[in-house]
Every structure is written in C-alpha cells, then in structure tokens.
C-alpha cells in the first residue's frame, strides 16, 4: 500500500529503511555474519546498525562454507569481510570451511584473534586438506594465538612448536601426527592444556613419551594407549608440578588405567594423596574390582560416577550397585565431601547410606537418575542424620529424575528436618560433558 499526495505526485517507494533502527537490528541479528556484512555495504544506515551489533556480538564468530556460496562471495569480498570483522573478533571457528579461504589471509596480521578452531570436513574426498604449511600460515597470521583446536587435519605436527604464545592445544582426528615432532612441541611451548583424546586413530597415533617435558601443563586429555605406548609415562605425568586435571579415555582398559594411577605401589610418593576428585562415566561389568582400585585414593574428596543403561533410551537396564561393595568403599573413602552416583540401581539404600554414616564431611549426596527405593531412602537417611550431633550443616540430597518423588520436599517430616537434610529436586550435577569411557582425575593444588 503506497501513499499519494493530494496533487497525485509519484508514489513514495516502499523501503526497508522505513523501519527504525531497533527493528532493523532485530532483523539483521537473524542473519549470519556474512549476510550482515553484505547488507551493511548497501547503505550507511544499515552499516551503522551492523556496526552497533558487531560491537558486542561478534567476539566469537563461526564461519562455514555455505555462508559464502553466493556467486558474489568472491575472494576479494571474503578478505574485506574478515578485515571488517577483525576489530571486533577475538575467537574464530572455521567449520568445514574451504582451506583455500584461510590461505587468502596469508599476508594479513590478525593479532586480536587469540582463539582459533579449524574443524575440517570428515568427508575427505575431493577436498583440499589442511596441511603442515597451513600451521605455519596460522603462526604468521595469528601471532597472538593462545588457543588452537585442529580437527580432521592432515598434519604431522611439524610446525606446532612455532606457535610461541600457544597455551591450549587440542588435536582431534588428526591421523598423520608423527611422534618425533612432539618432543619439540612439549619442550618449547608453555602449554597449560593439551587434548588429544577424541578420535585419535589407533592405527596411526602418536607416542607422547615426551609429554612430561612440559612442566606448565595443568589439564591433560589423552587416551589409554598414550599412557603406555613405547614406555609407561604414568609416573612422569603424576609428577608434573602444576597438573590439575588428567582425563584418560579408555574403551577396554579402565581397570588397568585406574590401577596405574591409584595404587600406591605404582604411583610416585604422595601422588595418590594428591588426587582429590575422580569422575567416571560408562558401562562397567565389574564394579567390585573398580571400587577396589578406587579405594586406593584414600584422600578423595569428590567422587562422581555416571552409570549408563545397557538398553539405551528406555530407562530400563540400569547397572546395579551392590550394598557390600559400596559399604567396603565407604570404609576407605572417609574424606568424601561430595558423592555422586547418578544413573544406577541401588541394591538397597543401605550401601550408599554407609557413606552418610562414615564420611563426616559429606555435604552433597547426588542420586540423580538413580533408583534408590524411593522415599525409604530419604527416611532412613534422616534417621542416620538425626543421630549425628556433630553435624553442623545439613546434607544436600539431589534427587532429580530419580525414583524419589520431588514433592517429598513439602512433606512435614522433611520440612521439620531441614537443618539436617536439604532435598534438591531441581539441580543437575556440574558434569555435563560426561563422555563415556573417560576417567578424570582432579588433583589438589
């Protein structure tokens, strides 16, 4: 509908610019960042709106090939787009982007960017690959890079040691890594985090025998075969002075890995006493043996176990934790302050409640997704707590998605006992990234 004047002059042209800046911003925010750039080139006002959005919203940018598939997305335009983004951008993620686009930046200096993720296409056919020379390019173009993640790249690792400012390195599904390049990497870089855990090809993966040469490491994620390829590096890892978290992915050797780290005979002096947290998620068929090894971590304060159903998705087939093995474990791990047994079927409440009796510092008991025999668990827990005259703070019991009904929090008995037991039916535990088969050790520092 157009408006006309009384003198019947030419009608006013309908234009997007009739909208105010607030509405234009709402529209433009729904476009991808390259579309935003293109629309900002069309008109001063739109440019101003885009700049206002970019001032706060493009610190982290994801670039994908499909964003540039229009015929007008020439190389010159891509380069101009990146240069326009650079004043605002600190983190760049390239998802299955054509590596030739990255190479267009080779003469640029983008020193504001500190985080880079290059997530290559797992479908390798016909694609130009990210290779060693591209690592050199990254070193030139992003001189202040602190965090780098490379996935599905065809690199040997040759030039990674040239990334002098790097403190976090993640290598995922890079099948051509060569072990001898890692010596320089670990000696020259002051890495805080190193992650090579996910999808390393077991046929051609690298030996990390020199990992201990990097004394600045705080977080390490590796697979079980990295611990003992040519030689066992477990002892050296446990001696790293700043180590805070050690995650080890294991498909078939969970007990072996745990024994290497937890048994006092195997670990360097005091190493087992330094481990204050342990987390595991996965399916095990011998929890008795698992708990035997775990019991060696006498100073453990936080224990987190996530069971998985044998039958996926239907809520049935939860793994059973027997009372006897739980009771035995409670005798050993008396320093626990947090105990999370999520997604299990308890033989009866007795086993878990032994921890309430014996762990005087226990503050959180998390039975999310577990089958605990319902309200009986709560009443028996209260019975134990009511006798603990030394207890200064209530025990928190997390029951979300368990077989304890959430309305129990409103029961008179629970309301009267809130200074002993505080039931939380809403919280989910802190570990959202519970990848199956990962043993995570957290160290006291």
């Amino acid at each position: 509908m157009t408006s006309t004047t009384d003198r019947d002059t030419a009608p006013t042209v309908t234009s997007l610019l009739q909208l105010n800046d607030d509405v234009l911003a709402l529209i433009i925010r729904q476009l991808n960042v390259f579309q935003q750039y293109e629309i900002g080139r069309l008109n001063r006002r739109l440019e101003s709106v885009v700049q206002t959005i970019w001032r706060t919203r493009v610190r982290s940018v994801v670039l994908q090939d499909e964003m540039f598939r229009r015929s007008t997305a020439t190389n010159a335009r891509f380069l101009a787009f990146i240069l326009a983004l650079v004043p605002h951008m600190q983190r760049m993620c390239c998802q299955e982007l054509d590596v030739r686009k990255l190479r267009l930046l080779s003469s640029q200096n983008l020193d504001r960017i500190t985080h880079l993720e290059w997530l290559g296409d797992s479908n390798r056919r016909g694609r130009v690959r990210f290779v060693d020379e591209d690592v050199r390019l990254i070193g030139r173009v992003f001189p202040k890079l602190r965090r780098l993640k490379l996935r599905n790249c065809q690199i040997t690792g040759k030039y990674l040691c040239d990334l002098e400012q790097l403190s976090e390195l993640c290598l995922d599904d890079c099948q051509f890594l060569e072990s001898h390049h890692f010596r320089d990497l670990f000696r020259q870089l002051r890495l805080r985090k190193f992650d090579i855990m996910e999808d390393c090809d077991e046929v051609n993966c690298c030996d990390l025998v020199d990992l201990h040469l990097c004394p600045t490491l705080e977080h390490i994620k590796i697979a079980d075969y990295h611990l003992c390829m040519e030689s066992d590096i477990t002892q050296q890892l446990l001696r790293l002075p700043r180590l805070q978290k050690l995650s080890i992915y294991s498909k078939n050797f969970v007990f072996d890995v745990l024994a290497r780290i937890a048994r006092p005979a195997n670990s360097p002096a005091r190493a087992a006493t330094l481990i204050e947290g342990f987390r595991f998620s996965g399916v095990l068929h011998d929890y008795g043996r698992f708990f035997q090894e775990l019991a060696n971590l006498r100073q453990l304060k936080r224990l987190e176990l996530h069971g998985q159903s044998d039958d996926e998705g239907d809520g049935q087939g939860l793994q059973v934790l027997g009372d006897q093995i739980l009771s035995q474990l409670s005798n050993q791990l008396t320093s626990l302050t947090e105990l999370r047994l999520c997604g299990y079927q308890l033989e009866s409440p007795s086993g878990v409640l032994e921890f309430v009796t014996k762990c005087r510092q226990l503050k959180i008991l998390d039975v999310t997704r577990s089958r605990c025999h319902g309200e009986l668990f709560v009443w028996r827990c209260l019975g134990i707590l009511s006798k603990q005259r030394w207890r200064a703070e209530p025990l928190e019991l997390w029951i979300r998605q368990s077989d304890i009904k959430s309305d129990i929090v409103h029961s008179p008995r629970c309301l009267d006992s809130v200074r002993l037991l505080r039931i939380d039916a809403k919280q989910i535990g802190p570990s959202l990234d519970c990848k199956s088969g990962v043993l995570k050790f957290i160290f006291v520092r």
Partner: protein
Amino acid sequence: MSLTPDDCEEPKFVQLKTCEGFIHDVETCLVEQMGTVRDMLLLECSDSTDVIPLAKIEWWIMKMVIHWCRLVQDNSAQKEARDRSSMFIELLEEAKGDDEVVFQLLLAANYLNVESLLDAGTQYLADAITTCGSAEEIRNRFNLQNDIPSDEYEP
C-alpha cells in the same frame, strides 16, 4: 502482572484510539499481549473505561494487530517460531499485504511492544533477505538507496 486484580470486577474491553480518532474495543486478554498498553494501564491503576490514545497507529494497522493477537491467543499451543511464522504469512495473505503492510505492522508491533508479532515479522523479513541471491538483489527488493561509494569496500 495482570491487568485485572482479583478484588476488582473484571473489565472485558479496553478502548484504544488510533491517530484518525477511530476507537477499537479490545478484549483485555488481547491487550495483555501489547506491552506498552498493558504497562500504561498498570501505571494508571486502571479505570479501564478510559480511552488509550495511540497517536502513531493507523486504524487499519491496529485492526491487523488485534487480529494477530487473537490468532496468538487462539493458537496458544503453537509457540514454536515456525508456527508463528506460518501464522504471520497467513495474516499477510488474508490482507493481501505487501512490503508496506509488513513494515507498518512491524513499526506498530515495536511501538505497542507485541513481542510475538515483532519476532514473526522480523523473521519473515530475515528469511526474505536470505532468499535473495546477491546483495544487489537485496537492494532492489527492498529499495535501498546506495549512499556508500564503491571504493570504500573493495580492497
């Protein structure tokens, strides 16, 4: 916060006057969706027989906004963005609306703070921009005046 406190007799309609002086009688439950009007009434501690002036809104647009609010209320289960997008397209097709209608609706939604209409309308325009094959096509489609010299962008 509702417009109808429990201890008051519930008023059924609110009168909204558009810029031409036309008065629309709008059910209170629909006015709840118009944040600006809702807040005005709450601040006034309403005697809802007052007429609310809406100087920036034309009568035909107000009619469409009311129709939208009724659609949203009647289809309250359909809260997904794509369902609201479909409703918005149906609204336009019923009114045989073109871009001018869309723009006026969005300006009204922005003024009246009808969040659902704003979301659906901006999504509609964002989708239209995305379907354009080139920047020039966007320019032609939406009549954007070119006031940036070309050498400012080309490296």
